[in-house]
């Protein structure tokens, strides 16, 4: 009844009425634990809070440590953990005393309740104080878990989940300086987690009963989650001072300790591992692991070096795709680096066409194209192109032929198509060297590829300016083929095909150019007229103001570019058309010359024959 008589927030009242407080405490001492009500716990907490608020942490500590209160602390002490933790963060002066109080509570109360309360504290923490709270909570969690006699695996699992969840709310540093500065304390948190996991991974290694197996699964889950967040986003520069790298090393060390080899995780994933992540997230985690192993050579001596390069590439494709399709810079960067490393191991011209039929290869190709054509970051596009070239180099002739055809058909991007046409030219050049001839770049199969290289996407209505990159490369290729015509002429069918394609292409391109030229000249004239009109209007507006006001509105609806820029654009378009036409003319010239030479040669031959005949 005394309890009910107390007001809701007794902070001040309690202190004023010391007698009542003593009564209350005495009652708690005498009451058996199961009869203590939630209200009692609340009052107990309020009392402690008011103690702390008045700076009497010393008194609180003595009270808690008093042997007479032992039973009371045991049954209600846990409710103090949250306020004590909070106080420890803001009150540096009495830090030691509060720590002793926390330790006293955590060692006196039942471990289950300690753990539950600690995790509640952790979960209720707001972003700014996450790192400090986490660093503070972790040692007590560890001690609590070690005190448990059973159910350790599930508590470990919940603890790791909560800690990881809070960890991921912290911003990940993206430069080394930021990592060193560690403004948000992510580094400190990772360090705390390292010590925490080490305490349990060692234990798992030496035993193999059901509980340890569960603990192993929990640790594995934690490792996979951590690889995805925060590690995948961090720069991961090797070194002893970079917190993220140290954390990454710890994660791989934990995997070793729980006997989950990186090779099995990455390459033989069909086996059940009880990892509670969805497929894409898991692929991201594994992508990060593959990046650490192959690109950063972390723990490389533990990774078997007996896998064939093509197998490594094939297995990594799935992870590369997952990383490349992300919109985050750090993911794409890691994906490209992993792709590059996976390719480097293969020998040039060694990858067979079967690789192109693998679903994950198709996916990677698509996501690489996306990086090349849509990524707003120049450096990513550039390294994407380097990787594409590396990929091309590693494929054998047939696979190159197929990839080129595929990209010409599906990329729908003149820049990429131009790049492929340039590569076709290089391959033709390579094939013309003695001993390198293949049907894919000189023989019968070559014509089908040429047909794709010399195609205009919308026929005669193609926007020449838009497709300029491809058209220029195609004309370049055409010129090259006509100059180095000898090996191609050796196969009549091929040469006939090449000539047919050339005729058709140049004819159509000429029409395209003249149509585009007509259109752009029209635009240019219109712009000039407009300019004149405007000048006239400006002159007129000196008389009436209304004209001037209506002018800007009109201009706005017509084009966003300023007339000067538009003029320049149109001019340069016309110059481009000239350039293309001169290139076409040049190819025609070469063709005519060659034919002439051949005619000359045959005429000479006839003449010689005649001479011979005359001689006899």
């Amino acid at each position, binding site marked *: 009844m005394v309890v009910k008589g107390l007001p809701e927030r007794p902070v001040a009242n309690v202190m004023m009425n010391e007698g009542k407080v003593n009564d209350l405490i005495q009652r708690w001492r005498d009451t*058996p*634990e*199961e009869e203590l009500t939630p209200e009692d716990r609340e009052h107990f907490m309020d009392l402690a809070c008011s103690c702390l608020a008045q700076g009497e942490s010393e008194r609180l500590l003595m009270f808690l440590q008093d042997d007479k209160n032992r*039973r009371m602390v*045991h*049954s209600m002490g846990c409710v103090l953990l949250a306020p004590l933790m909070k106080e420890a963060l803001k009150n540096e002066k009495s830090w030691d005393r509060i720590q002793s109080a926390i330790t006293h509570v955590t060692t006196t109360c*039942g471990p*289950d*309740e300690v753990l*539950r309360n600690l995790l509640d504290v952790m979960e209720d923490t707001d972003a700014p104080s996450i790192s400090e709270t986490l660093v503070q909570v972790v040692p007590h969690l560890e001690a609590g878990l070690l005190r448990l006699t059973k159910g350790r695996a599930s508590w470990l699992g919940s603890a790791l989940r909560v800690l990881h969840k809070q960890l991921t709310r912290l911003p990940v540093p993206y430069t080394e300086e930021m990592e060193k500065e560690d403004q948000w304390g992510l580094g400190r948190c990772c360090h705390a987690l390292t010590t925490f996991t080490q305490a349990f991974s060692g234990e798992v290694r030496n035993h193999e009963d059901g509980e340890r197996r569960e603990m192993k699964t929990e640790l594995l889950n934690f490792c996979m989650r951590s690889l995805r967040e925060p590690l995948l986003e961090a720069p991961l520069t090797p070194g002893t001072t970079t917190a993220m790298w140290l954390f990454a090393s710890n994660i791989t060390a934990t995997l070793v300790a729980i*006997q989950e*080899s990186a*090779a*099995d995780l990455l*390459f*033989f994933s*069909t086996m059940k591992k009880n990892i509670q992540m969805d497929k894409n997230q898991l692929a991201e985690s594994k992508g990060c692991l593959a990046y650490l192993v192959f690109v950063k050579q972390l723990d490389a001596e*533990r990774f*078997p*070096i*007996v*896998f*064939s390069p*093509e*197998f490594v590439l094939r297995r990594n494709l799935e992870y590369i795709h997952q990383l490349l399709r992300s919109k985050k810079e750090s993911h794409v960067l890691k994906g490209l680096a992993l792709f590059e490393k996976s390719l480097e*191991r293969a*020998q040039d011209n060694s990858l*067979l*066409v*079967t690789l192109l*039929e693998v679903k994950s290869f198709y996916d990677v190709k*698509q996501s690489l194209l996306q990086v090349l054509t849509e990524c707003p970051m120049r450096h990513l596009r550039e390294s994407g192109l380097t990787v594409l070239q590396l990929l091309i180099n590693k494929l054998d002739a047939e696979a190159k032929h197929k990839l080129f*055809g*595929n990209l010409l*058909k*599906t990329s*729908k991007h003149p820049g990429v198509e131009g790049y492929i046409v340039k590569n076709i030219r290089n391959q033709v050049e390579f094939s013309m060297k003695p001993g390198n001839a293949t049907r894919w770049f000189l023989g019968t199969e070559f014509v089908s590829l040429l047909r794709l290289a010399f195609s205009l996407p*919308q026929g005669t209505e193609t926007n020449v300016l838009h497709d300029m990159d491809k058209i220029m490369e195609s004309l370049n290729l055409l010129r090259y083929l006509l100059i180095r015509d000898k090996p191609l002429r050796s196969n009549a069918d091929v040469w006939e095909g090449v000539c047919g394609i050339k005729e058709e292409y140049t004819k159509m391109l000429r029409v395209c150019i003249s149509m585009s030229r007509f259109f752009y000249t029209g635009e240019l004239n219109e712009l000039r007229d407009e300019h004149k009109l405007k000048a006239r209007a400006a002159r007129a507006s000196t008389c009436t103001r209304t004209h001037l006001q209506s002018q800007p509105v009109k201009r706005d609806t017509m084009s966003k570019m300023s007339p000067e820029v538009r003029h320049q654009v149109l001019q340069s378009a016309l110059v481009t058309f000239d350039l293309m036409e001169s290139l076409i003319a040049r190819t025609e010239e070469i063709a005519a010359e060659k034919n002439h030479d051949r005619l000359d040669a045959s005429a000479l031959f006839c003449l010689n024959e005649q001479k011979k005949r005359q001689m006899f």
Partner: protein
Amino acid sequence: MTTDQDLSMDGALAAAVFAAKGIDVTPKKDQGIIKVFKRHGHDGECPMIGDRVTIHYTGSLLTGKKFDCSRDRKESFSFNVGKGQVLKAWDIGVLSMQRGEVCTLLCKPEYAYGSAGNPDKIPPNSSVLFEIELLKFELGETLTDDGGIIRRIKVKGDSYLNPNDGSVVDVHLEGSCDSRLFDIRDVSFVVSESEDKGVPLGVDRAMDKIQKGECCILYLSSKYGFGRKGKPEFEIGPDKDVVYEVTLKDFKRAKEPWEMDLHEKLKLASEIKHKGNQYYKAGHYYHAVIQYQRIVSWLEMEFGKALEQQKMINDFLLSSHLNLALCFLRIQDFSLVVENCNKVINLDASNEKALYRRGEARLRRNEFSLAMADFQLVLQVNPANRAAHHQISTCQSKMKEYHELDKKTYANMFQKFAERDTKDGRTKRKRDESVRSSKNNELGIKRRRSQDRLSCQ
């Protein structure tokens, strides 16, 4: 310089020793891999191509320098043999071993690390030595994520090209169930349409991994065999696992999507859709799924030039995803239902069927509030949809039911915590020490039960 000479000396010496004692295990007999027995196997059983073998190994250079060793890592090494996962020397060498055998393989660079070597560890163009112990092997490799198709290869194929969906294949089949041969025949079928010829799904799905000339044994779980219905013609009961020996004699590949233009794709898509619908009606949901997925994979990345074409593409995609959702509902793979419905809803936010089917899937997944939201959207689109009305009331009653269940669980949980605390408290207090244990526990449980009843009411 001297070290180089030493190296080649050693190499020559080793080669000589091996040539004297060892046998050449390469198919070409080019002395590329020479094997010397150290211990013979137990039972004479050799792994087949595709089997998952577990070994211990030590790799060293001819100088004796160890570069990789599984024993140092204290973990054995597993891989699928003969599948190009590892160095060529291993694929060939391990296939020649018996269970329990220990041998040493001397491998020339072209069967090992080639002209590139391995940075830091193996110089270019090095011959290497592997000591291998074949610990064990598991039969076959799994071809699907769910492990429903397991293959062992008896004879390796001679070409590297595999049939794709739509290929016409000529095969010889021998199906058996509980070691009773029920089906021997030569048959030709279209991959993805095997059902028409009474060939089970598993054989169909394995085709794109089988090479021409290959002879393999497929172990099919009933999902990939004849399913819940069984096959009366072959006297196969429901939910029976079956084994098929398949020889791929010949095949004609279908065109790859990128080899076709949009016209062709659209034309074929309507045929495939028809086929899918037939399978659906006949209850062959997995076969129907394959058909619809083909359409999606073809048209997903296409953009029609003309408005009309674009509309056709969209229509195909919509109907395929809707049909896929329906199939997965029948198969009871609800996350895939949601995925497909989402795709439809992305294209057409007020698609009644998609919303309804998503709701259905979510209801089955116990996501009641999400399901309810979907059915309410259905009613926004079409207020006259009676089924949706009905589903909403189902949602409501289920939610209530679930809520009750929740309450019960939580009630138990708090009770349990409280009890444990009480118990711990008592131990500490050393009160009633003699009677504690069993009696107290019993009391606790009884009290909890009565509490249960209370919370239920």
